[in-house]
């Protein structure tokens, strides 16, 4: 997972902290929980400040709206007739008040414009600052030097535009903060999961310490209802632990001595003690938070195009506003200057580069956060986009479709040996083996209460089987090839072995002292939810392929049981990546689901690699999507989330694009020749604020997503 250079960063940080402390600054590391909290209070402060600015602007806005055109109101018409000195005096007051609004409520637009001019990058602030200040300057000239304008109609003022536009855009920003806060709720929830304190054993006494003080090796005491503070291994006691917040698994998991516990999960009924193995930034929760934060910093590939457009967008809008001004001045109806000015200001105000810029990041942040709440860690925008396009899913059989842990299923004997004796001998040989099938036989024998003896002269014959001496007898356990090599006749057993293999089990021949003794069969059992997930994938139009090192017959038997049509059997671990590549050459977009180290090359080769989280760190590292819980239903949910998120991205981009490409021409007055319709700058400001809030709200809609096949 993330953070390979964490040590380097931490060490470097202390140096910087010391250096900057002298300068009176505070230093924080990106992604530290503290930074998140500071971000939240910043957010709240900013929201309150914007709301103050809005109320100030709105109050003066109401006043300026009325008194910019007092002759339109019957009550005021007599007192303030058009063109009178009293109106002019009132407008002067309004000029001062609206300047106050620009300076107070609109300050961020002007600092933003100043910075944008210095860095030669125009943005929304540039447009709003230009628009409102042009309206204010024109109005002030009209009030101070009315004689400059040949017609009386031209001496109108636009202080209302200045004030109301500023107020509306500020209100829009405040609403954005609220909506954006909801977008990143998932990460805040994850950070909030962290336990604050831990009860540890120090010098024989139980003491409560802040969770930061828990060290690796500490024995931590967890009482009923407590939150598990850090990651570790249970050393005493047992209990059911609710891991739903990390894995999405809703049923509490039984934990006893030797089992791993994850920090931030909640202990239900029992009490236990565990030894801390991972603390601080190394815990599973910290890794998840880091991974989600990093993923949210990535881009959906389509955004690269949007970025290019955005780079040209704002200066292009300024150019269009100037073109609009010139065209209306040259060819527009009288009073030409007024119309030209209104068109230019409206164009500057209505354009919303923000909606375009926010369209993808907002959906991406929500979508990746959504994944995290379902126990699905999506590595970034690219994985998300690719997951939507998948046509084929390759499932590694062992550990993915099945539990990956075989169990003893059959003991068949011949030549007069007893069932239990055959199993006892086989178990004695296999106890020395590291093969996963061996453990199943040993556990099977133990379950029957057989006393397993010791084996001598153990030898593993790769690809064939094992042999050893048990109680002075030569015991051979392996495939038909091993038996033939040793000249042992297993012909009578072969039909039964075939039957077992047809049923998806792995039969092993047992020979004792050079004679066939029977068959021991083991099988990997299918996970309860694999069938459901495969049906769901097929219903989504995705072809499901099973890949396995097993023989064709065993593979087909499992495939039939779970409903997979295409099977790639007898594939050596090193060839899995090659098989994925072959599918890609068939022009398929291939997702690979795997859990083991040997799956890593295939995961990396595939378009989207799904690591089943119960697997190894290597597989997780090579994957694009990690399923914390080892259920295939997570694959279905991950694809559904990616489809929903990408649909949301396209909706947002389409909306932002349509908004700008319809809004800007209307602002420029294309409707005027046909309907004598010209947009008011105030309406433009409302539309602009509304458009960016709409984009964020649409992204938030994603949170209502419910998987059809629950990952839990």
């Amino acid at each position, binding site marked *: 997972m993330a953070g390979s250079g964490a040590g380097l960063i931490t060490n470097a940080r202390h140096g910087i902290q010391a250096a900057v402390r002298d300068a009176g*600054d505070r230093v924080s590391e990106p992604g530290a929980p503290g930074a998140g909290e500071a971000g939240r209070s910043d957010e709240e402060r900013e929201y309150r400040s914007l709301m103050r600015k809005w109320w100030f602007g709105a109050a003066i806005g109401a006043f300026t709206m009325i008194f910019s055109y007092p002759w339109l109101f019957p009550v005021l018409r007599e007192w303030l007739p058009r063109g009178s000195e009293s109106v002019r005096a009132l407008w002067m007051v309004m000029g001062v008040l609206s300047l106050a609004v620009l300076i107070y409520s609109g300050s*961020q637009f002007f600092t933003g414009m100043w910075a944008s001019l210095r860095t030669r990058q125009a943005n929304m602030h540039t447009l709003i600052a230009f628009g409102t200040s042009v309206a204010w300057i024109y109005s002030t000239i009209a009030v101070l030097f009315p004689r400059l304008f040949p017609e009386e109609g031209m001496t109108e003022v636009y202080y209302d535009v200045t004030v109301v536009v500023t107020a509306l855009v500020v209100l829009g920003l405040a609403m954005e903060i609220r909506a954006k806060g909801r977008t990143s709720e998932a990460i805040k929830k994850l950070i909030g999961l962290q336990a604050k304190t831990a009860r540890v054993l120090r010098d024989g006494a139980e003491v409560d310490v802040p969770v930061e003080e828990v060290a690796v090796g500490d024995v931590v005491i967890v009482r009923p209802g407590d939150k598990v503070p850090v990651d570790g291994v249970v050393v005493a006691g047992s209990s059911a632990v609710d891991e739903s917040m990390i894995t999405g698994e809703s049923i509490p998991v039984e934990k006893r001595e030797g089992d791993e516990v994850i920090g931030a999960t909640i202990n239900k009924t029992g009490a236990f003690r565990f030894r801390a193995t991972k603390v601080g930034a190394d815990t599973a929760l910290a890794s998840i938070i880091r991974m989600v934060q990093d993923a949210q910093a990535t881009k959906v590939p389509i955004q690269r195009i949007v970025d290019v457009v955005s780079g040209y967008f704002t200066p292009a809008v300024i150019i269009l506003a100037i073109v609009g*001004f010139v065209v209306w001045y040259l060819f527009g109806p009288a009073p030409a200057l007024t119309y030209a000015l209104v068109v230019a200001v409206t164009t500057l105000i209505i354009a919303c580069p923000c909606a375009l810029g926010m369209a993808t990041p907002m959906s991406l942040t929500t979508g990746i956060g959504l994944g995290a709440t379902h126990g699905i860690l999506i590595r970034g925008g690219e994985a998300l986009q690719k997951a939507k396009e998948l046509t084929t899913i390759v499932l590694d059989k062992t550990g993915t479709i099945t539990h990956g842990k075989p169990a003893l299923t059959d003991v068949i004997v011949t030549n007069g040996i007893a069932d239990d004796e055959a199993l006892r001998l086989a178990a004695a040989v296999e106890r020395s083996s590291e093969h996963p099938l061996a453990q199943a036989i040993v556990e099977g024998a133990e379950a029957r209460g057989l006393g397993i003896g010791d084996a001598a002269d153990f030898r593993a014959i790769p690809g064939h089987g094992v042999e050893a001496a048990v109680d002075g007898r030569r015991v051979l356990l392996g495939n038909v090839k091993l038996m033939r090599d040793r000249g042992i006749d297993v012909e009578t057993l072969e039909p039964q072995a075939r039957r077992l293999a047809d049923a998806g089990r792995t039969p092993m021949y047992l020979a004792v002292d050079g004679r066939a003794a029977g068959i021991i069969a083991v099988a990997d059992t299918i996970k309860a939810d694999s069938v459901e997930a495969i049906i769901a994938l097929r219903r989504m139009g995705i072809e499901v392929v099973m890949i396995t090192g097993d023989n064709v017959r065993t593979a087909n038997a499992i495939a039939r049981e779970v409903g997979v049509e295409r099977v790639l059997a007898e594939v050596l671990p090193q060839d899995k990546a090659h098989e994925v590549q072959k599918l890609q050459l068939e022009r398929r977009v291939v997702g690979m689901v795997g859990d083991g180290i040997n799956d890593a090359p295939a995961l990396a080769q595939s378009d989207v690699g799904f690591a089943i989280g119960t697997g190894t760190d290597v597989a997780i590292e090579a994957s694009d999507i990690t399923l914390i819980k080892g259920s295939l239903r997570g694959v279905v949910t991950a694809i559904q989330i990616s489809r929903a998120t990408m649909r949301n991205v396209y909706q947002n981009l389409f909306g932002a694009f349509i908004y700008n490409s319809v809004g800007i021409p209307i602002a420029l007055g294309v409707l005027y020749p046909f309907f004598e319709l010209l947009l008011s700058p105030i309406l433009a400001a409302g539309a602009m604020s509304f458009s960016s809030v709409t984009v964020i709200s649409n992204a938030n809609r994603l949170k209502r997503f419910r998987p059809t096949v629950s990952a839990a």
Partner: protein
Amino acid sequence: MTPDKILVLLGGAGTIAFIVWFFWLAKKEGVKAGLTPSGYQEAMILVKGGYTPDVIRVEAGTPVRLKFRREETSSCSEMVVFPDFQKSAQLPSGEVVVMELLPKTKGTYAFQCQMGMLHGKLIAE
């Protein structure tokens, strides 16, 4: 065409030409990151309405340490994102946040606020 219209036409054309030059054509020099005794190339970036400096020149293959100091509360700039490095950081106002990056190959690595309103570039040479 009346003199005022000619003036508006010429003024408009001139302003457009200026905007094209100012925003698109004029080349930005940027600031070269200084090398610290610890072997990092270091630059301080002020976040206020934009990134100052917004173009930072570094040498490829040497670790880079960018110190962001945000001096505003505007929510636009609360997060800085380096998509090419898959890194992001919250920038609490008034704090110095340190980002460490390693541009392994030559090229231009963009950084921006989360909403794509403020932009900057890290140019590795």
